[in-house]
């Protein structure tokens, strides 16, 4: 899915950098990344822990945790900047235009309030419905996310639900005001494997029905393969490869992406051992010069250690790797 030519994409992140000032200098956690998501599109953002995926998601909803801050770049929703809005202006966008689902359903809900109360307060913040209508809407939402006996469960407290059911409630809360975009930050990581597929299928179905776009942040390539339309692979705060999901999975160009793909088990191919990328992602205070992946890269050569590659178009993908760039000026 290429962005439509005339209308701006639903969400556009331009050259976003996020930094953490510390006593020992400023750490750059997200370094000059650009992303876009169209209406109804599912963008998978994949990468190891600490690659900056969640930070990017937090920055988009304006909830970067102190002392993290946006150092440069722009975030545009429907072509309008939202990264420079006041807290109050941004609050009106959160929930109404951009919903969020977080990693751990066990801790995402306030333990002291019933599910109904949390749904109703969210609905009432964003709509003109009165309490009765909001309650009816809360019931619809719980039914939509597949909570059995939803009517009785409205008055239940979060601790009375299992993890999977709680994540369904969280999804209901995220969808309460019919946002155009949902940022789902590792929505299945904390769940049992058997529940994960259900939750992903639910999220996918609900968003498809409503035409809601999703930014699906995860480190699980399998989830991405099943769910996403496009994928952005992040490494050490940068996007190293992005493109349509089939193209990235079957035709990965960046050595890091290939490594990630090699680590997915396949039923068909009788591979006995999964490939493994040696080493670990660099710490924020020790990101190597040149391409951040160079110490772990099998195909590393001189230039990788000196200069940093920018994204260039190769077939359907965009890749930041010197393997595909013959001259210095070849930046797309």
């Amino acid at each position: 899915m290429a962005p439509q030519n005339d209308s701006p994409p639903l969400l556009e992140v331009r050259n976003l950098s996020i930094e953490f000032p510390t006593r020992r200098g400023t750490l750059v956690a997200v370094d000059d990344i650009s992303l876009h998501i169209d209406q109804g599109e599912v963008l998978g953002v994949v990468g190891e822990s600490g690659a900056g995926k969640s930070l990017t998601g937090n920055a988009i909803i304006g909830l970067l945790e102190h002392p993290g801050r946006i150092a440069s770049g722009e975030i545009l929703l429907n072509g309008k900047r939202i990264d420079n809005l006041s807290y109050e202006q941004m609050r009106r966008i959160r929930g109404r235009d951009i919903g969020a689902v977080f990693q751990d359903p066990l801790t995402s809900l306030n333990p002291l309030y019933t599910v109904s109360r949390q749904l109703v307060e969210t609905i009432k913040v964003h709509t003109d419905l009165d309490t009765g209508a909001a309650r009816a809407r809360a019931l619809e939402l719980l039914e939509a996310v597949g909570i059995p006996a939803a009517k009785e469960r409205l008055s239940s407290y979060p601790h009375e639900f299992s993890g999977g059911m709680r994540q369904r409630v969280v999804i209901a809360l995220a969808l309460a005001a019919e946002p155009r975009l949902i940022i789902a930050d590792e929505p299945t990581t904390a769940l049992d494997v058997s529940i994960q597929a259900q939750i992903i299928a639910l999220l996918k179905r609900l968003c498809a029905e409503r035409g809601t776009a999703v930014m699906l942040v995860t480190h699980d390539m399998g989830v991405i393969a099943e769910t996403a339309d496009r994928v952005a692979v992040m490494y050490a705060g940068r996007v190293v490869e992005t493109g349509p999901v089939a193209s990235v999975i079957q035709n990965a160009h960046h050595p890091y992406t290939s490594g990630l793909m090699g680590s997915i088990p396949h039923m068909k191919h009788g591979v006995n051992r999964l490939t493994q990328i040696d080493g670990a992602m660099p710490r924020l205070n020790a990101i190597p010069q040149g391409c951040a992946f160079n110490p772990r890269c099998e195909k590393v050569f001189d230039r990788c250690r000196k200069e940093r590659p920018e994204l260039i178009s190769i077939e359907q993908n965009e890749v930041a790797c010197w393997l595909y760039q013959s001259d210095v000026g070849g930046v797309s």
Partner: protein
Amino acid sequence: MIAFAVRRFIQAIVVLLAVSLIAFVMFKYVGDPISQMVGPETPIDQREALREQLGLNDPVPLQFMHYLGDVVQGNFGRSFRTGLAVDRVLLERIPATLELAIVAVLYAVVAGIPMGVYSGLYPDRWLSKFFQTVSLIGISLPTFFVGVILIYIFGPTLNLLPTFGRGEVVHIGFWSTGLLTVSGLKSIILPAFTLGMFQLTLIMRLVRSEMLEVLRTDYIKFARARGLSNRAVNFGHALKNTLVPVITVIGLQLGQVIAFAIITEAVFQWPGMGLLFLQAIQFADVPVMSTYLLVVAVFFVAINLVVDLLYYVIDPRLRLDRAVAQGG
């Protein structure tokens, strides 16, 4: 809920029995009441007669049983010093102490919670840092010192507030209150401030640290991500989640304040139970002392019971019976 209340009630009785035993045993050996009651020239046979009359020659367990039997019947004995019935003496003093304690804790709560919330929400603002510094002083200065300084400032120096006694009191049934007269209200300011200062700083610091903790939780972040207003997030979601530990401490502190208002009462000559207790100690007035301990224990137990019940109201996770009924 009812089973819980019954269970706690039985526990409370056990606690009170234990306290009465300790009170009894301790005061049994605290001094000889006879020598306090009679003059030095009283002959030994008269002393022995008195001892016999008061039951002090019985075996100790028997004395305890007598004591318990009397207590259950509401007979707390007579003060060795004044010869008045102890329950009457104490009952006269309880309103003064309770009013002082409640006003002190109210003031500590009303001022301490907002200060704590503010410094939890905005830990970097100068006012928060100021609160933190002042609270260190409040927590480290001894009560009697604060009291004496306040007396010096507001008494002889500024001549603004009364520095001793309760002022005029109004009797409503058995209760005497100073809260309905101007002089009574003026009189309670200094002692309540003194008594409540430590509690104020404690509550403030506790609320602050609990707020800082709760504000970091996922459900607060998720509440913000849902677009709830700051007010709803900070007060509706965050503050309520700090309440369980805060209420625990407030409850315990109310007990403490009732029990250990002694020093403040002494400094301000406040005619409460604490002052009575101090006088009783000087005279080894055993019935007064042991009854005082019992009364304090009753307050402690009752407050703890209320606190435990409040947990149930605040935190649904503690309503175990419900969760079990629904399969956990």
